[in-house]
């Protein structure tokens, strides 16, 4: 049965991103060097229009497109919208950061491609589409991580990111082959029924290997080691993006994916719960001693990925699961942009000690960092709290109370390392002002910080929209 969606508007955001990337590249080729930073504006325009069209799509009825290989449902559109906004904010952070780079228009091109990869991943309704979306986002990700071509850290981060990603993707592809073999199809619409009564052993291995790939994308144990390295080594704006985009794409994909799996042969729920538990604990504990703020943020991103998995554990069992997933993604994205943005705005200042007494001379930046960190801990009424509330409610609802308890314990642990940075910033005698990165970065930080507050306080419109969503 062919179900070709006649309305190309359904995939307009994807088209805009793909074409837009090429347009940016072409224009950059014929633009003199001093105008290169304006490519950021162009990229921003592309991302903005993608965001606008994704937003307009929200009212469309959900459906599948391209012969069921791509889902165009509410969750996917929200993910698209969020990704575009995140990329937009990252562009804002990047302008000044990359200005000295002789040739950085490609950075924006790759950024758009990475966004597109994550968008496709979030919408993937086909195993092959999964593989290619994963490849697109990964390849773009490696490039972003290594984009400082004279920086020892950046190149190392890119290399490690690649090495781990290649292995994880290799494993995932084999898993895809296994699932294809079991079900006889790669399209989810057929995979689900095809897997009914499938051999449990092969199913477990196939699912496990796919999860390895998804875990890599999200930075979840045991495929997390790239996260702190990339957070520390990659260009800071790119690092912020890399912390976020994989989580959005992969979490939404995973939610879509597990729903087609037969519950009877495969204990995917406890498996995801275990991975979530290990990830959040590991990330938090490892972050405890970090003196490098970016690396600390990397480990914190690992633990946050663990929290995000709670939504997957509850999916299908609690009506809070999907709202909690989206709330987590939104809150996490804005929070990460805010805190990484502060690092960017302080020209990459990353030594914990250097943050001493900064609250005096930089009240707004440190205020944004405070809001971001408090949101990560889950202090109300910030977005992070709304996310944790929903996540924990969802897992308790799904019968995984122990996971909620563990989340609580981890939240407490996380407080320690966040306040190892914030404490001195506020307690010590105010120091001198530090050079900053310019207005645009500050504006992105402000937008993200306000977003963190807003999604917590004005959660109703979002939740109302999300409550009815289905995968």
């Amino acid at each position, binding site marked *: 049965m062919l179900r070709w969606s006649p309305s190309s508007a359904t995939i307009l955001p994807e088209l805009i991103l793909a074409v837009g990337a090429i347009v940016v590249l072409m224009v950059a080729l014929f633009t003199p060097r001093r105008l290169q930073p304006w490519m950021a504006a162009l990229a921003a325009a592309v991302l903005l229009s993608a965001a606008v069209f994704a937003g307009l799509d929200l009212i469309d009825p959900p459906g599948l497109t391209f012969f069921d290989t791509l889902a165009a449902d509410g969750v996917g559109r929200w993910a698209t919208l969020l990704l575009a906004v995140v990329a937009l904010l990252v562009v804002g952070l990047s302008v000044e950061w990359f200005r000295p780079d002789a040739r950085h228009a490609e950075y924006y091109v790759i950024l758009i491609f990475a966004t597109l990869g994550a968008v496709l991943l979030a919408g993937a309704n086909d195993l092959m589409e999964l593989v290619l979306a994963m490849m697109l986002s990964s390849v773009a990700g490696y490039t972003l991580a290594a984009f400082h071509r004279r920086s020892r850290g950046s190149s190392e981060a890119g290399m490690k990111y690649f090495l781990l990603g290649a292995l994880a993707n290799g494993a995932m592809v084999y898993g895809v082959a296994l699932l294809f073999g079991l079900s006889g199809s790669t399209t989810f619409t057929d995979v689900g029924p095809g897997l009914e009564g499938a051999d*449990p*052993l092969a199913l477990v291995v196939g699912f496990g290997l796919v999860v390895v790939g998804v875990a890599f994308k999200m930075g979840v144990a*045991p*495929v997390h080691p790239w996260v702190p390295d990339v957070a520390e080594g990659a260009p800071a704006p790119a690092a912020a993006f890399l912390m976020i985009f994989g989580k959005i794409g992969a979490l939404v994909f995973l939610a879509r994916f597990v729903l087609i799996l037969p519950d009877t042969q495969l204990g995917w729920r406890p498996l995801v719960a275990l991975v979530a538990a290990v990830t959040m604990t590991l990330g938090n*504990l490892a972050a405890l001693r970090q003196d490098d703020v970016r690396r600390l943020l990397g480990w914190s991103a690992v633990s946050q990925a663990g929290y995000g998995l709670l939504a997957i554990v509850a999916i299908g069992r609690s009506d809070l699961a999907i709202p909690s997933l989206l709330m987590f993604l939104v809150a996490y994205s804005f929070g990460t942009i805010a805190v990484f943005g502060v690092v960017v705005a302080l020209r990459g200042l990353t030594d914990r000690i250097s943050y001493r007494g900064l609250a005096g001379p930089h009240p707004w930046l440190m205020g944004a960092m405070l809001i971001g960190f408090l949101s990560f801990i889950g202090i109300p009424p910030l977005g992070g709290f709304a996310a944790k509330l929903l996540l924990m409610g969802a897992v308790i609802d799904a019968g995984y109370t122990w996971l909620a308890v563990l989340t609580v314990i981890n939240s407490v642990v996380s407080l320690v390392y966040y306040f*190892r940075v914030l404490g001195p910033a506020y307690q010590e005698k105010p120091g001198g002002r530090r050079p900053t990165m310019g207005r645009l970065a500050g504006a992105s930080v402000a937008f993200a910080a306000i977003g963190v507050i807003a999604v917590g306080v004005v959660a109703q419109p979002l939740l109302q929209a999300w409550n009815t969503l289905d995968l």
Partner: protein
Amino acid sequence: MVWLPILFPLAGAVAVLAMRRRRPWLGPIAVIALLGSLVSAVLAAFSDATSTWSWGAGIDLSLEVADAGRVMVVLVPLVAVAVVLYAALSMRDDPALPRLFALLAGFVAAMELLVVAADFLTLLIAWELVGAASWALISHDWRNLKAPTSAKEAFVTTRFGDLGLYIAAGAAFAATGSFAYSDLASGADPLWLGVVAGGVVLAAAAKSAQLPFSPWLFSAMAGPTPVSALLHSATMVAAGAYALIRLQPILSAVPWFGPLVVGLGLATALAGGLVAFAQTDLKRALAGSTSAQYGLMLVATGAGFTAAGMSQLTAHAFFKALLFLGAGVALHSAGTLDLGKLRLGSTMPRIAVLFGIGAAGLAAVPPLGAAFSKEAVLGAAFDAGFWVGSGVLVAGFLSALYASRLHVLAYGPGPPVELKSRPHRVEVFALAVLAALTVVLSVIWLPGSKELITEVSSGSFAEGEPWELGLSLLTIAMALGVVWLLWRRKVLVTAGFPQRFRIFVAGWWGIPTAARRVIIDPVIRLSRDLASADFSVVDAVVRGIAASAAGFGDRLRRRVETAVDWIAMGVGSRTLLTATVSQKIDDDGVDAAVEGIAEGFRFGGEQSQRTQTGMSHHYYTMLVAGSVVVLIVAAIWR
């Protein structure tokens, strides 16, 4: 109406404080306030006034002048007037005089409240206020740390007794849903009534310095003389006996109430008598005698004859105040209270006579009122049983013994003494007033007075036998003879006891030492131990959790990342970890724990370069190992 006896002294206290700069006015103000209290008390006593004060939610403080209270409400300001009169002169140079007057007035107010209380809540309020006022009065001379220390001992001891009233009030509430005496009287669960009785007896024993709480009176001696005089006669100490007398009609429904009170009183009367006899410090000897005398009141009350107890209380109030003021004069004039160094009779004959009247009262020499009340107690005791009566007879003998000894040693004839100062006329007048009251009280020997007392205080007297009076007189004579003998042998000061035994007895039979060893020291040690345990155990658990979380995190991360070197790492790090943690655990806080672990691992890092990571192939190992674990778990755990 019923408020006035309380409000007058309170107003006086406020006025004294307000006018503290005009020292000459202070005395008159205080005296006038107390006189006002006295007059209104008389009026209240005749009008049987009642009143209530609402605490909200149906809890009312009810006040009523009734039963023994009719006597007591008058007695308190009466004694207080004399004492304040004395204080106004004897302490005229004390810069803290306003505070003293204010507190004395407050003391009286609190006592008046106690007297008119008609429910346990009000009783408890007044009871504790009396105690607090006594603390403040005893620590009058606070620049010398001895005074507040003694005051604290006294206060804590009596507060322990106060718990009895808390319990009684709670039990009354549990039994009847209210705190009023009347509700309890109109029928209550006997079990709860027993708890009430036990609580009241505990509280009364502590306040009235019965065994085993008696020694606190010694601590109370650290206060100035007028304070002691008031405290022993009509306020603080009297509260215990008064409460028992007031509540006896209700509590006597408890079968063991009477015997308990009688036993307690008798034991204290005998033990206290010996203490008073053995003491060489005038005020302390008087303190011992106070316990003994209140013991006698308890005997009468326990035996069921509250009128006897009440008359003993009244008589005692007058002569004991008199005796204390006499002791104060001695201290003031001779600068010491050591019985071996006084004998002021030749130097101050007038005071000696007045003191002698008091001593006669203490010895219960007829025709003084004190003798009448003693006889009433004796009658009550014999009513309770032969052995009780005999005990009281012995106690009476002891009273006469120490009373005469004290008089002889303090104001007996002796060599002229160089006096520091002579008592002021008004001071003598105050003593004279009390002596006169003691003497005037003899009127209760007149026929018909028994009936009057019975009617006023709603109590009763035992049917005394004539031979009891004879026996008493005999014991008094015997006591005088013994004192004369000892005097002749010049061992009166040491009472003829061997030195160590005398000190043991004079120090209240070793009770203070025992209390220190058995209660105070262990409690303080316990509190210190707990305080250190609070940090080293309770908090250490918290810190330990934090530390192990941090340590676990490091170990976990490093071990996972260096999956290859698990075993080598594990052994090394665990020893290191244990060492560092135990060494650092005394350092403070979570951060320190984190730092401690960090330090341990830095050391560990130096030991083994292999723990360093950041290498991709370690990541690879982790990925493969982790995936295998994931697969195994997924295969097993459905």
